[in-house]
């Protein structure tokens, strides 16, 4: 059972668009924020609210970069690996993050805090190299700056709700 306020929020989203399925991504975003990722329970809730099948939603949840069908960390790091960021850091910010956090690409650090994902260009090329963490831009990266950002994020952790 979803909390009442959340259920209401989902129905508001569906009512705000001409056809329910237009709200599919929005509904999944809200459930993802609630559960931490799109677990099976979240997918069933989304299907019920949208009047779609879980299979239809599955084809979206597994396709899009910002929907997570598998557990992710508290902070999802979308690393821009476009050619502009690459040319400023040919050793690769992406590889550096994986190494420093001890994770494979797409993996989550052992403390459950960070997931590293490659991203299509995030539209911040004039400040390359850049990354996006939970929707916020971090630019002109160097290994030192990355370490500082990670340390800062480690300080301000809230425990997210998780699927059982």
């Amino acid at each position, binding site marked *: 059972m979803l909390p009442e306020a959340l259920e209401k929020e989902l129905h508001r989203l569906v009512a705000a668009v001409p056809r329910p*399925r237009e709200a599919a991504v929005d509904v999944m975003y809200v459930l993802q924020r609630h559960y931490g990722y799109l677990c099976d329970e979240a997918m069933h809730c989304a299907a019920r609210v949208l009047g779609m099948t879980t299979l239809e939603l599955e084809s979206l949840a597994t396709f899009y970069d*910002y929907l997570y069908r598998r557990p992710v960390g508290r902070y999802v790091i979308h690393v821009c690996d476009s050619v502009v960021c690459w040319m400023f850091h040919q050793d690769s910010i992406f590889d550096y993050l994986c190494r420093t956090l001890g994770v*494979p690409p*797409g993996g989550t650090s052992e403390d459950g805090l960070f997931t590293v994902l490659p991203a*299509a260009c995030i*539209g911040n090329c*004039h400040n390359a190299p850049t990354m996006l963490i939970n929707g916020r831009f971090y630019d002109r990266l160097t290994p030192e700056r990355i370490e500082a950002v990670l340390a800062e994020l480690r300080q301000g952790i809230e425990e997210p709700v998780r699927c059982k």
Partner: protein
Amino acid sequence: MQVDMPQVLFKNRHLGRPATIDEYRAGGGYEALRATIGKRTPAEVLQLVLDADLRGRGGAGFPAGRKWQGVPVDHVGPRYVVINTDEMEPGTFKDRILVNADPHLVIEGIVLCAYSIGASEGVFFIRPSYEGDAVLIEQECRVARENGYLGKNILGTDFSFDVHVHRSAGRYICGEASAQIKAISGQRPNPRKGGPRTAVKGLWDCPTIVNNLETLANLPGIVRNGPQWFKSLARSATGSGTKLYSVSGQVAKPGCYELPIGVTIREIIFEHAGGMAPGKTFKTVIPGGASTPYLPESLLDLEMDFDPMRAAGQRFGTASLMVFDQGTCLVGATLSLIEFFARESCGWCTPCREGIPYIRELLRRLEGGEGTEEHIAMIQDMLPVLDAAYCAFAPGAAEPVRGLLTHFMDEVRAHITEKRCPFGNPPPSLRGKACGTRPIQFGPTPCPEDQCPI
């Protein structure tokens, strides 16, 4: 910021904040709308756009007016405008800067388009990393509504039109018009091939015009000042208007500049973007976004305009210039581009899904010093296969590779003879974790880690 060039789209650009509705109106904002709704016919607006020869600023360069003409006049029922703000191509960030500079210019442009094609509803399609812009445009649409420029009975007339924001969950292919329409309607966003154009059958099977945000932002100027004025803004004989050029890479002042269509590439890089970054020497530039080829130094005086670029075997694209210096390995750069395309392929058709990773593997070998002359021939054989793909994505991915093999073959061969990257790049890492004997690859069909068959 440019002061010596006519600023139309960036007229109200302030550092660090968007222009308010009052600032926009103070400079003549919304006057085009006042002079149009209920005073001109939709066909008159269309004629202005056709006469101005406004071409799409999102990459393909199709004339906007001709696209609008595709909407069937006898259609009964809703018509839609979709505002494409899904730029996810390496090097391109102009739409983000534009929304943040002058949101009401964009809104006025959208309403003018809607009026011309008789649309009742607009969908602002926006990518996830631009969430800040989504919030801004929602807020400014409210302001426009309160002032009578949007919503029911615009400016007291019987014309009603409203816009809402559709948030994407992020995939490069959503920038393609038919894929974008599927994305909005909650379907997997694979492009549609053949069949009716979106102008005839788009969102919810109704006529839909999908235009790039910058294209629409040109409309208030065209309607207010006329097609001749718009044409006179361009510097080239065949061009019209100004253009937002995103400049990135090894230049002194990377950023987004509004300059005439037809300005030379040399002028953009060496005057407006401040020349090369300190200590760097120019090697090449990708002039129109990631789906266009490298441009050799001998073509630096080429005019940035659709037709001259095409005549020179180049593409105007999104006019996003990525500048490379002598110290950057172009085999490595092309590998980076191809990694991007391989991962972002929607996976729907075989030439793209299989062909791009094949080229990636060959480039990886070349860059790592394990390449042979035969690998170059194999890449050359594969390039036309990409042209046989379902949408423009795969042919676009082939362009930088073609440019590399046409203009920088010496650099490719140096990798073969020296058996290493002559620029000292480390061997490229496999983007993925060893899973059995295979790495996970991000792409259209990621290897399911927990169900690995090996």
